[in-house]
């Protein structure tokens, strides 16, 4: 079911990244450089967990847990899921909440509806996003009290 020949997928990713503006550096691969690809014809429902990097070009609904690894939603990827990963890069469509241990990136072709929690979030020019971005998930402080100097014209 999973295409584990990584070279074609990574070459395709490299090719697309060459044309995209302000493309961030690809995340460092984990698990000895292994990336599993879910191909465009694959539809998957349920909980997805793994110990290696994952590229999704197919359709996934449910939850994705790759806490120590990198998740990439490719241009053809269509996801309805909450996702947890070290880094998350979205080039396709995703509806759901994203939690990135290090970074979440939505590229120019990415479309995301949901909430993001990550220490670093990058939205490329042209990316579509609707939802909230929490760049600091520490406990909240009390309500606003300070006021800037008032001056009415």
């Amino acid at each position, binding site marked *: 079911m999973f295409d584990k020949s990584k070279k074609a997928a990574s070459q395709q990713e490299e090719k697309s990244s060459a044309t995209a503006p*302000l493309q961030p550096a690809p995340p460092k691969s984990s698990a000895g450089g292994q990336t599993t690809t879910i191909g465009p014809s694959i539809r998957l429902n349920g909980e997805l967990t793994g110990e290696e990097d994952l590229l999704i070009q197919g359709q996934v609904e449910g939850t994705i847990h790759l806490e120590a690894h990198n998740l990439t939603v490719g241009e053809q990827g269509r996801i309805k899921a909450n996702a947890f990963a070290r880094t998350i890069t979205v080039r396709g469509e995703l509806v759901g909440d994203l939690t990135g241990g290090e970074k979440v990136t939505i590229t120019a072709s990415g479309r995301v509806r949901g909430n993001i929690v990550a220490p670093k979030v990058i939205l490329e020019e042209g990316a579509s996003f*609707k939802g909230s971005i929490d760049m*600091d998930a520490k*406990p909240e402080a009390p309500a606003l009290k300070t006021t800037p100097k008032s001056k*009415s*014209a």
Partner: protein
Amino acid sequence: MALFSRSSRPPATPEEAGGERLSAPAFRQLLQSLEREPGRKYRILDLARASGNHVTFFSRFRCRLQVAALAEELPAWRLREEDPPPDPARLLPLPPEARFDLVLCWNLLDYLEPEPLSLLLGHLLPHLGPGSWLHAFIQTRGEMPSQPGEFLLLEDGQMEWRHDPGSTIQTPRHSRRTLERWLPGVRVRQSRLLQNGFQEYLFQVT
């Protein structure tokens, strides 16, 4: 720390991008007040389209940034007389418990007719607590671009308003009195006419 020290994209010249530089003193002072409490976590509602520039800029604060992308829904907010009124809860869904310290309207209020504008502001009000801020630009000139464009936060403390200068529409010229009527319990703390015809408003919930 400089207020506008980072930008997520290489700045094009204003001429290339159909952009206009503008200083927004009220917004700048507001940011200075936010910077005085570096440990504070702010909840910010950005009504504009998702912008990497805004995300990068506000990442200097501990904050939760809600991107409403209202510009993408503008056709649904516009009303013809025969249409039913827009449903703000559907067009801008917010959890009942959501509270914001700052709402960034930019110039989007200019693109709403009076009825949907009053509905939007009425929808936002329950999500603003005492002390919350609302910042907006209202065009005072007769015409404005047919699309809202984008406001970028620049490194030199100014903003750049990028827009398509090609096609224009008539401005609704919302008055201060009208805005205050639709924002009961909210006061104008600062109001300035900027060089490019924008009236900059900084409202605060009392």
